[in-house]
């Protein structure tokens, strides 16, 4: 278990190094940070002030030291610590991810059960296209289609922003569709695996009603592996939010990233990438722990 946490730390340092590497890919990182229209004198001053004229390895360790003190720098444009800006928007992204999760789980799990238990039934025939569409629909397109149908034509729901509660409905559907398909497929696969086991045959032979077998035995047993997928899907929902937030002008971290690129606020972009990767790594760790917890046969020894 400690080893697994150690791997996550290695991954974190790796991510930081990659981000540092990309920052220096451009040749001169100062040019990314100066405001437009800066003179050569300004550029030289800033380069010296930020220490970009020192050897690369010195800069690297300085960079690690700042990060370890949770110092991500101050936004050149807004003159506020970038971390503050990011944190002020995090709650919106979390709401959206939560909404997407409700859509994904609320539809995905029941659909998966139907597909697994009642194969070939009418319900399954209706559910299959739902899964296929959810899996192949680009979120940026389904989002726009939802806006056209429910906002522009029907006028039922707001098309953008986060002013009222109903604003979250359309973005949640657009965001949740892909995870819904994943949940449905995983649930279905787990149930199919469970339903073919001997105890199910035995229960049927004993004359226990099929509904009872499904709800008291198959679903509880099948749900263990499903739980572990949840943490990974939450990570996917959070990264998927970048596109959905842009479509619906939802003021979360994803939209912030796009705004930061347009404003050439590089430190802010970097902070968002590091922050997002950190969350992603933590959620992956949680998924592994959950996996070991629900299935004690799994030992947390990663393959080399």
């Amino acid at each position, binding site marked *: 278990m400690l080893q697994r946490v150690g*791997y996550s730390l*290695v*991954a*974190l340092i*790796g*991510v930081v190094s*990659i981000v540092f590497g*990309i*920052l220096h*890919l*451009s040749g001169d990182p100062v040019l*990314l940070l100066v405001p437009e229209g800066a003179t050569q004198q300004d550029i030289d001053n800033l380069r010296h002030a930020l220490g970009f004229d020192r050897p690369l390895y010195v800069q690297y360790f300085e960079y690690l030291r700042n990060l370890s003190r949770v110092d991500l720098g101050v936004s050149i444009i807004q003159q506020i610590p970038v971390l503050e800006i990011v944190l002020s928007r995090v709650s919106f992204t979390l709401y959206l991810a939560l909404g997407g999760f409700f859509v994904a789980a609320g539809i995905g799990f029941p659909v998966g059960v139907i597909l697994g238990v009642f*194969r070939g039934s009418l319900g399954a*025939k209706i559910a*299959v*296209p739902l*899964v*296929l*569409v959810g*899996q*192949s*629909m*680009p*979120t*940026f*397109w389904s989002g*726009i*289609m939802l*806006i*056209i149908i429910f906002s*522009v034509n029907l006028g039922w729901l707001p098309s953008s922003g986060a002013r009222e509660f109903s604003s979250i409905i359309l973005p949640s559907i657009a965001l949740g569709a892909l995870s819904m398909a994943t949940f449905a*497929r*995983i649930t*279905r*696969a787990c149930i*199919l*695996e469970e339903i073919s086991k001997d105890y199910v045959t035995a229960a049927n032979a004993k004359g226990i009603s099929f509904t009872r077998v499904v709800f008291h035995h198959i679903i509880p047993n099948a749900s263990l592996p499903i739980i572990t997928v949840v943490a990974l899907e939450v*990570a996917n929902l959070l*990264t*998927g939010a*970048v*596109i959905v937030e*842009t*479509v619906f002008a939802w003021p979360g971290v994803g939209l912030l*990233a*796009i705004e*930061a*690129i*347009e404003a*050439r606020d*590089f430190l802010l*972009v*970097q902070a968002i*990438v590091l922050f*997002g*990767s950190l969350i*992603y*790594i933590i959620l*992956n760790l949680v998924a592994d722990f959950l996996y070991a917890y629900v299935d004690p046969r799994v030992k947390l020894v990663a393959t*080399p």
Partner: protein
Amino acid sequence: MQAGPNDLWVFIRPVWVFVLVLLCIFLIAVFAPFVTSHDPNYQNLLARLKPPGYSTGSRFYLLGTDELGRDLLTRIVYGARISLLVAFLSVSISLTFGVLIGMVAGYFRGFLEVLIMRMADIFLSIPAILLAILTVAVLGPSLLNLVLVLAFTRWPRYTRVAYAQTLSVAGSLYIKSSAYSGTSNTRILMRHILPNILAPLIVLATLEFGLMILFEGGLSFLGLGVQPPMPSWGSILSVGRNYISSAWWIVTLPGICLFVVVLSINVLGDFLRDKFDPRSLGR
């Protein structure tokens, strides 16, 4: 035939329908100048935002025009080129690189194995879209950068599969016997291991191809990929978003193309997975 755990797609077979769709789109993309004789960037400002079926007398716009009076059909046809090109290049690069080092890790083991597989883990723990955002912020958006970012983020998927497969193949007797009889390592890797681990990699590459098309569309939509005036389905959608109440066709039609292509690739990929790898669960 006993239905496997992946038989979800059985409802919409025959698969050849989807293969045919893909083939058509591929041919249209390759022979774009013959499909349509128009220039995707030709602007006719007198015919802006005209609906499908609009005719100026001298010219007929089957799918209407965009905000600059460009023919939407022509732009979609040329957009298919960009989508397929980006997906093809990024999949080729990441497949080649990922498989090579995955095989090396699985065959030579030892320090190389640890180094390569740890690197793969690290790369998998950065969300691809965030890495793309960072790279584009630093290097600026362009077609080449888009391909490189996608290849850069996706190689670990192939490495993991190639590694696991190589591990299971490398222990078999025929590999050992050819190693003992003095066959060079390169030859063993290329002639004996690679052909035996190819099937799951082809399945993965097919599904990744669909994903890359979605990524290209998504990043171009965000303004981080293909830049205007180059036609890409994602960038057409991105501009069309400003006209959803007046010109629905600009956002609807390229999206349908994207959807159909990705759906077809998903069906094909799952079909191949059933064929090649009957043990895999429906993931």
